[in-house]
């Protein structure tokens, strides 16, 4: 075992961030805590998307179907069937996994853009189903389900601090789970498949089942995030199943840096927090400004913020600081 001091030395920035997040409820008001909760939920959604796109090279345009299904499971069971929350959790996981298996087995016969198109079609089918008037007695049709009863101890309005800690723990837990998976022997095979699928097969890996496996894992993570989202907003509307959700995940992953784990989390912060302020400053025209910022980010950080910084960690800035400190040292001596 390494001594505690060196363990701390390697990780102090992360521990500092975690400490700040833990202490945040003491400084932030309800509105900002709510914003943070949304960031945490979106971050897990983006993380699950990155497991597919960034680590396994699978481009899906239908990821919202997992997120939305989690939300609708919560809505249908808590509101419609009045189940207790602890019984809903395994159903969310099972739904995400089952959809992952189904989507994987049906659509993984095709690759790349064709796969993306079929996942888009899948998601649209579920989106249209959720909004259909025939299912209105159960799903609420295009209005969705509102006023989902959330247990009083974790009420997103009255007990926002509790809800904040639940979502923070959820993100931290999912982050470490994703990290374990990525660094496991299985995770390395997935990276190999991303790099060269045909070669991975000729050295003896059954590419198909590895891909199904990661779609299942990613689907479960996204469904859990969707479930928490439904608890926070106390609703599940067709919007959570729409293609806009998938694009959110795509943007967060690309902005943060695909193929990194902290990237999508950072992407979620950028998109949600920036979106909030831009809407304040520019009113309904904020997506226009956001679009320009997105173009600039992609130009200056072609591998995402985290990916680009890892490749060339602000070389110019670092050299400038070094020169400055050297100059100061010479003057002092």
């Amino acid at each position: 075992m390494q001594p505690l001091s060196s363990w701390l030395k390697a990780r102090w920035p992360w521990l500092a961030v975690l400490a700040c997040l833990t202490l945040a409820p003491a400084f932030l008001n309800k509105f900002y805590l709510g914003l943070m909760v949304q960031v945490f939920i979106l971050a897990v959604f983006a993380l699950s998307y990155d497991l597919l796109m960034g680590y396994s090279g699978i481009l899906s345009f239908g990821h919202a179907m997992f997120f939305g299904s989690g939300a609708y499971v919560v809505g249908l069971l808590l509101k419609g069937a009045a189940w207790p929350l602890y019984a809903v959790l395994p159903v969310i996981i099972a739904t995400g996994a089952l959809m992952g298996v189904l989507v994987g087995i049906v659509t993984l016969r095709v690759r790349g853009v064709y796969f993306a198109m079929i996942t888009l079609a899948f998601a649209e089918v579920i989106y249209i189903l959720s909004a259909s008037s025939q299912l209105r007695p159960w799903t609420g049709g295009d209005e969705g389900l509102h006023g989902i009863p959330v247990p009083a101890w974790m009420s997103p309005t009255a007990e926002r601090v509790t809800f904040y800690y639940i979502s923070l723990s959820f993100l931290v837990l999912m982050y470490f789970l994703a990290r374990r998976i990525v660094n496991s022997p299985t995770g390395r095979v997935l990276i190999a498949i991303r790099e060269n699928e045909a070669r991975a097969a000729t050295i003896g890996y059954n590419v198909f089942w590895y891909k199904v496996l990661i779609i299942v894992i990613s689907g479960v993570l996204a469904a859990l995030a969707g479930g928490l989202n439904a608890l926070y907003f106390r609703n599940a509307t067709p919007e959570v199943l729409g293609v806009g959700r998938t694009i959110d995940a795509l943007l967060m992953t690309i902005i943060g840096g695909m193929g990194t784990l902290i990237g999508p989390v950072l992407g979620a912060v950028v998109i949600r927090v920036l979106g909030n302020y831009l809407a304040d400053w520019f009113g309904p025209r904020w997506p226009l400004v956001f679009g320009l910022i997105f173009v600039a980010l992609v130009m200056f950080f072609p591998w995402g913020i985290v990916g680009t910084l890892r490749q060339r960690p602000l070389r110019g800035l670092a050299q400038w600081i070094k020169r400055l400190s050297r100059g100061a040292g010479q003057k002092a001596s």
Partner: protein
Amino acid sequence: MDNTIILETNRLRKDFGGLVAVAGVSVKVRQGTSHSIIGPNGAGKTTFFNLLSGVFKPTGGTIYFKGHDITALPAYQRSHLGIGRSFQITNIFPNLTVLENVRLAAQSRGRDNFKLLSDFRAFGRYQERALEILELVGLRGKELTVAHALPHGDKRKLEIGILLATEPELLLLDEPTAGMSQEEVPGIMEVIGKIKASGGKTIMLVEHKMEIIMRASDVITVMHLGSVIAEGTPAQIANDEAVQAAYLGGTHTYRGWRAHQP
């Protein structure tokens, strides 16, 4: 020489639309031999290898490996049975390190591939195996280089390293010296020599460089336009009139063909 047949094809055929790439090839490969496939460009050699390794499904005929019909098996299962393959066009994991390229191939032989929650570095045996193989193919000291940054000759060595890490009994080497300069060739030949010397392995080789073929083969099969036109020892093939006609009439004229007779 062992007399067991390790690989046998029976009227193996592959059509691409109207083009017949492999037109009913029947070949027997004896265990422990070096069996080369030669022929002018477009003879169907690489397609034949693709059929053997499972990259393509044949349109007709059967393939037997150690007596079992493997015609319908997918590529990954053939790899586990012991058929390993290197590619004419370098086929590596470009953004991974040299070590990781080979380590992944070694890992595929173990039973740890689905241990989702353990760290891959905990399985040191795959890394050790990968380092042994890098030593063998002469890439030791470059294990942390990202694969796409290697010079061409080293990529060819890595290609063989990946193949060896899957511990195949039958190695299908598709032009291991493709695109190499004359100075790089001896390095690869040394690696192939080491594989032969380690014993027990059967090597099937596709090559265009005649001096390599003549030196490294026990048996040579000559293909032309998708069919086998001759088979025999290097000396027999060098004197075969049909072979000479195929080469001289084809796109290749092999200068020094006679000079390389053993």
